C-alpha cells in the first residue's frame, strides 16, 4: 500500500520537486514523518489528520510512514499539507491518482479540510513550471494571481474534499489555463508616484533622471533640504518601461518569498520602487535571517532603490551593497542554506551637502565647520560613490520659478526619449537573457562601434582629462553616459554635445570645490 505525490519546496528563489511518499503497513497506529521536515512541516501531521477526518474520510488506523524525498534537503513551509493528505488517501485507495501521476499539489489545510491561500503560491508555481510540471492542484484563491503563467492547468480547489472528488471522477474541477495572457498594467508606465510635470523648475534633474531611466545608470543627487530630491526620485517609475511578463513573474517571485505581496490577489506588475529609511540594518538591506530572506536590494530588483540621506546610513551597511550592485545578485549563506537572490536595480542616492543642509545655498547660511562637512560627506565611502555614473547638484527652486514662468516637462515627453533610447540599445547592444543590454549594465562592455565618438567628442574628452582631471576609469563611465544621451537623441555616433553633457554629471573631486 504505497503512493507518491509531487509537490515542491523552495530553496531561495528556485523550487525543487519533492516527492511525498506514503507507506501504510500493519502495526500499531503510528504516524512517522521523515525527510528533513522543519518544525513547520512536522506540525502538518496534526492538520492533515483532522482535515482528512473532517473531509469525511477515516484516517487510516495503521502504521503510516511518510517520506519527503529527496530526504537530504530541508523542507520548510505549510504548503505540504495537501500533498501529504492526498498521498495518504491514495495509499489507502480512497483516491485514484490515475492520469495525475505528473500533477503537483500544494496548499495549507485547515482542520475542517479547506485550503488556505499560499503566500508563496506564485513562487511555487513558477518553480514547478520550470521543472516541467503542467498540472497543479492548489488553493482556489491562488489562481487569479497567476494570470501571467501560461501553459499550465490550474486546478483551484476549495478544500481537500473537492480535490479528492475530482480525482475520483465526480464534481469535476474545471482547470484554468491562461494562454497568451495580456495585462494592461504591463503595457503602460506606472503613474502611481505622480507625473514629472508636477515638479516645477527642476528640469536639469529631470533630464538626469531620464538618462538614468534610459540607460540604467545610477544617480547621486546632492542638494539642500526642500530641493525636491525624493519627489524627483520617486517619479522615475513613471518614465521606466513597463515590466515584461518574464520580469513581472521574476519580481512577483521575490515578493512572494519575502512575504511582501501588497495586494494579496495580484502579481506585481509595476517596477518596484524601494525607499528604505536610513535606520535600516544591513540584514534588512541586503537580505538575511536564519533562513535567508531577500532584502531591500532584491526587493528593488528590476526597479529602483532610492536611499535618501545617504551619509546617515551606517557605513558598514552601505559598503555591503557594493559587491551585489556590481554582480547583480547576492549570495547569502547560512548553516544548511545557501540562497542566491537577484538584485539588478537603478540606484538613486540623495544627500545633503552638509549636516545642516545649507552648504552652498544662496539664501541660508551654512552653520557647519568645514571639518564637520568633510566628515559628513566622507561617511559615504569613495568606492560606493565611484560606482555611480551620474552626479548631480541640485538647488532649491525659487518661488518665482515655482509659480510657473517656465514650462515643466511631463513624464510622457521624457518617456518617449527613454523608449527611443531603449530601442537604440536593443539594436546596438543586443539582448541577454531576454532583456535589452543597457549602457549602464555593470558587467557588460559596450562594443567599440557603439562607443565611437566624432572628433568633437574626442576633443571634449581629451580636454576634460586635462581640465577636470578625469581619470581613464571615469572617462569610460562618461563614455557610457554619453552613449545613452546619444541614444536618447537618436544619434549613431557620440557627438561633442553628448559628451559635454555627460561630463557635466562627473563626480567632482573635493579639491575642485
Amino acid at each position, binding site marked *: 500500500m504505497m503512493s507518491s505525490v509531487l509537490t515542491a519546496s523552495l530553496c531561495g528563489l528556485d523550487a525543487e520537486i519533492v516527492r511525498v511518499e506514503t507507506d501504510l503497513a500493519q502495526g500499531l497506529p503510528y504516524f512517522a514523518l521523515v525527510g528533513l521536515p522543519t518544525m513547520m512541516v512536522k506540525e502538518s501531521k496534526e492538520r492533515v489528520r483532522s482535515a482528512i477526518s473532517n473531509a469525511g474520510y477515516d484516517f487510516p488506523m495503521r502504521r503510516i510512514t511518510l517520506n519527503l524525498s529527496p530526504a537530504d534537503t530541508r523542507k520548510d513551509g505549510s504548503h505540504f499539507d495537501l500533498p501529504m493528505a492526498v498521498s495518504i488517501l491514495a495509499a489507502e485507495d480512497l483516491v485514484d491518482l490515475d492520469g495525475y501521476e505528473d500533477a503537483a499539489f500544494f496548499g495549507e489545510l485547515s482542520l475542517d479540510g479547506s485550503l488556505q491561500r499560499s503566500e508563496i503560491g506564485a513562487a511555487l508555481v513558477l518553480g514547478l513550471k520550470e521543472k516541467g510540471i503542467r498540472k497543479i492542484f492548489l488553493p482556489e484563491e491562488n489562481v487569479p494571481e497567476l494570470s501571467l503563467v501560461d501553459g499550465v492547468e490550474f486546478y483551484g480547489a476549495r478544500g481537500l474534499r473537492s480535490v479528492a472528488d475530482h480525482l475520483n471522477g465526480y464534481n469535476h474541477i474545471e482547470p484554468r489555463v491562461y494562454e497568451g495572457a495580456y495585462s494592461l498594467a504591463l503595457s503602460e508606465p506606472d503613474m502611481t508616484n505622480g507625473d514629472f510635470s508636477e515638479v516645477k*523648475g527642476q528640469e536639469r534633474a529631470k533630464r538626469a533622471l531620464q538618462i538614468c531611466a534610459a540607460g540604467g545608470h545610477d544617480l547621486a543627487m546632492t542638494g539642500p533640504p526642500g530641493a525636491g530630491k525624493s519627489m524627483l526620485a520617486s517619479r522615475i517609475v513613471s518614465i521606466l518601461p513597463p515590466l515584461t511578463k518574464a520580469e513581472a513573474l521574476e519580481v512577483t517571485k521575490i515578493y512572494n518569498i519575502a512575504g511582501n505581496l501588497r495586494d494579496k490577489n495580484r502579481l506585481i506588475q509595476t517596477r518596484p520602487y524601494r525607499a528604505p529609511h536610513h535606520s535600516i540594518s544591513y540584514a534588512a538591506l541586503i537580505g538575511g535571517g536564519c533562513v535567508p530572506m531577500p532584502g531591500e536590494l532584491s526587493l528593488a530588483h528590476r526597479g529602483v532603490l532610492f536611499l535618501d540621506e545617504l551619509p546617515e546610513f551606517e557605513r558598514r551597511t552601505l559598503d555591503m551593497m557594493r559587491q551585489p550592485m556590481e554582480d547583480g545578485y547576492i549570495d547569502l549563506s547560512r548553516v544548511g542554506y545557501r540562497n542566491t537572490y537577484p538584485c539588478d536595480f537603478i540606484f538613486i542616492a540623495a544627500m545633503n551637502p552638509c549636516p545642516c543642509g545649507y552648504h552652498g545655498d544662496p539664501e541660508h547660511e551654512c552653520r557647519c565647520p568645514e571639518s564637520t562637512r568633510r566628515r559628513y560627506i566622507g561617511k559615504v565611502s569613495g568606492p560606493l560613490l565611484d560606482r555611480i555614473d551620474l552626479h548631480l547638484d*541640485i538647488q532649491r527652486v525659487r518661488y518665482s520659478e515655482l509659480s510657473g514662468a*517656465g514650462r515643466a516637462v511631463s513624464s510622457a515627453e521624457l518617456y518617449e526619449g527613454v523608449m527611443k533610447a531603449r530601442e537604440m540599445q536593443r539594436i546596438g547592444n543586443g539582448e541577454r537573457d531576454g532583456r535589452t543590454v543597457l549602457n549602464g549594465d555593470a558587467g557588460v562592455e559596450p562594443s567599440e562601434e557603439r562607443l565611437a565618438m566624432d572628433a568633437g567628442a574626442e576633443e571634449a574628452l581629451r580636454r576634460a582629462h586635462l581640465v577636470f582631471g578625469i581619470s581613464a576609469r571615469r572617462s569610460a563611465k562618461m563614455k557610457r553616459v554619453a552613449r545613452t544621451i546619444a541614444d536618447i537623441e537618436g544619434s549613431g555616433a557620440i557627438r561633442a554635445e553628448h559628451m559635454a553633457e555627460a561630463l557635466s554629471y562627473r563626480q567632482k573631486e573635493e579639491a575642485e570645490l
Partner: protein
Amino acid sequence: MATENIVIIERDDERFPESLRAITDAPKRLHCIGDVSLLRAKSVAVVGARRATDYGRWAARTIGRRLAESGVCVVSGMAEGADTAAHIGALEGGGKTVAVLGCGIDICFPTGNKKLKREIEEKGLVVSEYPPGAPGGKFTFPRRNRIISGLSAAVVVAEAGVASGSLITAEFAVDQGREVYAVPGNINRLLSAGANKLIRDGARPLVLIDDLLADLGAGAKYAQNDPTDLAEEERAVFNLAKRCGEVTIDEAASLLMRSVASLTATVTLLEMKGVLSYEKGRFFVP
C-alpha cells in the same frame, strides 16, 4: 615633517622684511619653509571668514588668482574657508603665496590642508613666529594676523562676519598704515556684516579687482576675461552669466529658450575653456 629644511630668520637678519621690522611688536624671528625671498616681495594679504559662503570663497579665490597673475604675492593665514581659497587662487594663477601660521611650522592646522601646505612649501613660503612643535592656542592665531598685515602692502577682506578674525587683521593693517580693502556683500547677510562695516568705517570697497591692481601699480594684465573664440550660442550663455551673476541651468534654459540638455552641454564646454565655472547647480564667470 622634516625639520631640517626650516630656515630661521632673526629680526636683525637682512632677509627679515623691512615692512615687518617696522611694526610694533614685530616677531623676534621667523621660521620659514620655502622661498625666503618672498618675504621681501610685493605682497597683498587676502583674508576672510573660515565659514565663508560660496561667494566669499569665490571672491578670495578670484582675487588671489588675479593678484598672482599680475605678479603680486598673496599672503594669507591658511585657515579654512576664504584663506584657503585665496591660497588656491594664487597657486592657480601660477603665482607666489605666503602662508602665515598661528602654530608651529611643522603642524598643519586645519589638518585638511595638508596637501595645500605641501604645495605652498614647494611653490611659495610658509612662515611662523612660533618654534616647531608649538601647538596653536586661542591667542596665537589672532596674534599672527599682525604678521599677515605686516608682510603686505594692503589687506583685502574677502568676507567677514561681525566677530571675524579678519577684522583683527584689518585693525592691525590700519595701525600699521596699510590700505584696507573690503569686498561688499548683501546687507542682510550676517557673514557680510563685518566686511560691510569696514567699508562704512573707511575701508575701500573692492568693487572691481582691476582697481586694486591699478592701486598697486601692478596694472591689469588683461582687462576683463573676455574670450573671443566663442560660437554664437556659447557667446549668448557667456553674456547671460556676465549679466546675471549666478544662473542655474534651468533659469538659463528658459531665458535663452533652449533645451536643458543642450544648454548643459554648452556650459560644460565653456567650463572646459575656462570661461565659466559651474558649482552647486549654478554657473558664473569666474
